């Protein structure tokens, strides 16, 4: 097997893992293959000495990669479930309850803020259109119609921006909560001498 086939196989075995992560893995093996080749191995021999690709991927997957993907920043809801799952261990139940309460209450707050902002933005928008049509029918001056409609649209846009802001900021908040609690769990399990992940 040459390097290219080797890396292609590694990549296809790590489909569920981020590209950046897979690149780190191939870089690591590339360095070792090069080192081995400089020690007198042929390319084929160097690759062969690493063992078969399935074995390599299994060993790596069984270790850090699992941790890494669990804590992939973007997927905080998935992380929430994972952390909650870990917390079913008896000694972690108090942490689990605290985590659940904090996470869920902030989640509800965020969702209601998001819904409130987006609904009011939509409401202002719809009212603007209806109002404009009514004013045109009533035969109001074009200039004043445009001005009122313009102001109303700006208000609607600002409300929408608030909604987007809430959405964006919640990712940061939830990731922070997940991080804090996974650290708590790690410390706790370390103290109790239990292995974690």
């Amino acid at each position, binding site marked *: 097997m040459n390097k290219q086939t080797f890396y292609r196989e590694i990549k296809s075995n790590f489909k569920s893992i981020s590209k950046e992560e897979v690149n780190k893995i191939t870089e*690591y093996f590339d360095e070792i293959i090069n080192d081995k080749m400089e020690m007198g191995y042929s390319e084929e021999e160097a690759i062969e000495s690493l063992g078969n690709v399935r074995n*390599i991927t299994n060993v790596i997957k069984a270790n850090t990669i699992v941790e890494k993907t669990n804590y992939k920043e973007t997927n905080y809801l998935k992380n929430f479930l994972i952390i909650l799952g870990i917390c079913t261990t008896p000694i972690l139940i108090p942490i689990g309850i605290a985590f659940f309460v904090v996470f869920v209450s902030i989640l509800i707050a965020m969702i209601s803020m998001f819904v409130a902002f987006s609904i009011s933005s939509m409401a202002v928008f719809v009212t603007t259109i209806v109002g404009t049509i009514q004013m045109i029918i009533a035969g109001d001056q074009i200039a004043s119609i445009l001005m009122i409609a313009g102001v109303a649209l700006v208000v609607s846009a600002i409300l929408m921006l608030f909604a987007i802001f809430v959405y964006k900021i919640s990712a940061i908040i939830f990731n922070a909560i997940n991080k804090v609690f996974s650290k708590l769990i790690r410390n706790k399990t370390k103290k109790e001498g239990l292995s974690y992940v």
Partner: protein
Amino acid sequence: MKVQLKKGLLDICVLAALMKEDSYGYKLIQDTHEIIEMSESTLYPILRRLEDNKFCTSYKSEFNGRLRKYYRITEAGKGQINSFLYEWKDMNRIYQFIKEMSKNEQANLLQRD
């Protein structure tokens, strides 16, 4: 060696290999090879874990026209080795205890016969 026991030891062995000087993947395997069996794919997660826990840092440096990733032990990493050595004193006592007890057991068995 049992997997559980070996797993913890590997991390410390890699750290210990970094005590002398900064090192890289292939060399780390070579340096620990006589003491403990470790494949390239085993070393990768270990290095990741050590780096994530800030027990070592890494930097890339040019070698033979290509980049090699070198690892350097941190103060926290050195602390890790020290606490291992400290804990191992207990392990030694436990080992002695187990050995002593099983010696008695063997002696008893002999007497019974």
